[in-house]
């Protein structure tokens, strides 16, 4: 026993190393498989408050760009208003429209923490469960798709951005509606994405838009980006297509969280079908 104690005190650095290393690896393995559901992340009180303060300061630096993008978006929205269209029938009647019911609502949020230079990039936004944000909602901005909500606290939420090795979204070619999957590019470039598993006979063209399909949490037709390069996948019937992203992730400022009112109904229905099989 005495010899053991002497042995331990002589090599105390090594034993201390073992204790701390094992505990940190345990933390690493445990919490990273639980999709960040832990208090050591940027939605907790201290780090969340700090990030909010600093992002308020950074907000001033980019006011001009934000104003420009908001003005552009306003202009395009004005173009969709009823008053922007010429009405060529004289008679006007007011009807209660029962054909269209709102399926998607949007919650505006500000980005308070963002990264583009890691393998798994996450964005923190300043809206949470109190404002109606829940897990698995889609997130877009004025220029295109941003990502998915993965974790929500009362006032903040974490978004897994498109620039993440785990993100895989349903996408299609804008012209001929050919369906594929959208993932981040292989070389961790924050400006490039990859549209995979397109049928070989789809004949995509350079410069064609890649947009969301209706099979995902997003409304149909939200842009991912434009096709810049085509290359066939070795020996298969499927094509891989390089896409330049429409969203500049390093300059994200305001985003919209998409609330699909039928999402829970759809997942419930599909889960029930799976159970029946």
């Amino acid at each position: 026993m005495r010899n053991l104690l002497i042995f331990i005190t002589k090599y105390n650095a090594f034993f201390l190393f073992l204790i701390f290393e094992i505990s940190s690896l345990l933390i690493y393995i445990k919490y990273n498989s639980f999709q960040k559901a832990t208090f050591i992340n940027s939605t907790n009180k201290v780090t969340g408050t700090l990030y909010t303060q600093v992002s308020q300061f950074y907000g001033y630096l980019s006011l001009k760009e934000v104003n420009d993008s908001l003005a552009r978006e306003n202009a395009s929205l004005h173009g969709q208003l009823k008053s922007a269209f010429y009405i060529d029938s004289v008679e006007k009647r007011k009807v209660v429209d029962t054909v269209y019911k709102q399926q998607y609502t949007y919650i505006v949020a500000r980005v308070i923490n963002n990264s583009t230079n890691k393998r798994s990039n996450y964005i923190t936004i300043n809206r949470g469960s109190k404002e109606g944000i829940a897990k698995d909602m889609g997130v877009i901005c004025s220029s295109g798709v941003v990502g998915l909500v993965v974790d929500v606290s009362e006032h903040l939420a974490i978004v897994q951005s498109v620039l993440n090795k785990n993100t895989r979204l349903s996408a299609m070619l804008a012209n001929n509606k050919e369906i594929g999957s959208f993932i981040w590019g292989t070389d961790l470039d924050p400006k490039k994405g990859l549209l995979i598993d397109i049928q070989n006979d789809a004949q995509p063209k350079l410069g064609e838009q890649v947009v969301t399909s209706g099979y995902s949490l997003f409304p149909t037709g939200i842009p991912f980006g434009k096709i810049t390069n085509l290359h066939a996948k070795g020996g298969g019937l499927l094509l891989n297509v390089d896409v330049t992203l429409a969203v500049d992730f390093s300059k994200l400022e305001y985003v919209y969280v998409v609330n699909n009112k039928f999402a829970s109904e759809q997942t419930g229905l599909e889960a029930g079908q799976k159970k029946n099989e």
Partner: protein
Amino acid sequence: MHLSKLDWRPGKRKMSRTILVNAIRFLVLVFMQVFLLKNITFYNLSTPYLYILFILLLPFEVPNILLFALSFLLGLTIDAFYDTPGLHAAACVVLALVRVLFISITVQKDGFDNEPEPTLSIMGFRWFFTYALVLTLFHHFFLLNLEVFSFTEIQYTLSRVVLSSIFTVFLMLISGLLFFRRKERK
């Protein structure tokens, strides 16, 4: 015995000063890492992790248990901001072990009295450069490989390790020269 009694007061004051300096260094390095360096990168290959300078500059006499506990704490603090619980903590604990080994090989124990801290101005350029380079390489190698967690991209990861280490050591030398005090050099 008599001498040590006389030295007790100034020693105590010196110790509290060391604690204060290190606490300020901890806060400043964490702030710089999280709000400035986190956003700096060259082609997604070279990202500096300057915060490990805190562990490098701890005094020689720091007990091993405190060294490991502080490294673990520093790692967890960075993890809280990076959303990677445990990752930086694990890398920092490895760094602490390498520090203990490196110092026990290159520095004599009796030299601690007039060389309290392993800074650039006290230890000289050659020793500090080797020290910083070896420790940074170990830390970055462990950190980036643990983050990727697969051997399929080993070539890409290794190039990230080397390029990031160059960037980090460069920043360390700059900060060493910035706080260079000539009179401490013998």
